[in-house]
């Protein structure tokens, strides 16, 4: 039980470091650690498929893409122009207002039931594959078209005009 609170603390700590570290490369590295703690959360919930996908797709592919872009553009300098302190304080207050609103609505709803894993096979590949390929077959195929069009669009955008 205390493992969850420890991992949750690590998630919040690393995500704070993501937005407050000056060097963008350090931000990406802290984001990788944050996503690793999310993977641990998925495994604690016995959502093994999502844990593996989070590990491979997010930490392995997406963040490496971020890192490549940062390093290829040679942006790992600490001379990023910073916003004025007033704008920063206003931004933190705005985010804090959102957090307070969310917590207040959570308090009003007053739900204190525990999360119980009734079916241990719920998050396994076998069960999810059955749902994915019976109930959600059309969205699955459409998402492949989405990925193809995103790839074409990315190549078209990043290509130098000759």
């Amino acid at each position, binding site marked *: 039980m205390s493992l969850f609170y420890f991992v949750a603390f690590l998630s919040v700590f690393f995500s704070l470091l993501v937005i407050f570290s000056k060097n963008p490369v350090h931000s990406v590295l802290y*984001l990788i650690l944050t996503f690793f703690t999310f993977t641990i959360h998925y495994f604690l919930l016995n959502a093994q498929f*999502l844990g593996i996908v989070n590990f491979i797709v997010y930490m392995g592919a997406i963040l490496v*893409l971020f890192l490549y872009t940062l390093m290829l553009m040679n942006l790992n300098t600490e001379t990023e122009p910073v916003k004025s302190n007033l704008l920063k304080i*206003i931004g933190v207050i705005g985010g804090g207002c959102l957090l307070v609103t969310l917590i207040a609505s959570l308090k009003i709803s007053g739900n204190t039931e*525990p999360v*119980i894993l009734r079916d241990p096979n*719920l998050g396994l590949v076998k069960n*999810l594959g059955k749902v994915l390929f019976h109930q959600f077959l059309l969205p699955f195929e459409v998402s492949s078209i989405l990925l193809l069009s995103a790839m074409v669009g990315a190549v078209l955008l990043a290509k130098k005009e000759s």
Partner: protein
Amino acid sequence: MQHISNAIQTIPLNHYILLSAIIFSIGVMGVLIRRNAIVIFMSVELMLNSVNLLLTVFSIYRNDAAGQVFVFFVMALAAAEVAVGLAIIVMIYRNTNTIDINVLNRLKW
């Protein structure tokens, strides 16, 4: 794996919602206070991930596998979004030689 997930069964749903709300708010703050376009993009990823975690928790709470399938679709969407977004940022960098978002004010009236 079974004994680990048995240990987690006493966590109230509230605490998961609280964790996701905190991380989502951190993402919003990151969008508001940073000027580097890539760091803003990373904050958006943080928000997407907190919502993913909450969807998974609700899927287990309601004992419904559709929530986890939805998370899978969100991850596929995020991959496409990152590819296009980073291509746009590379293009901006090539045209203006910076990724400071305050340079991009030409649409301002």
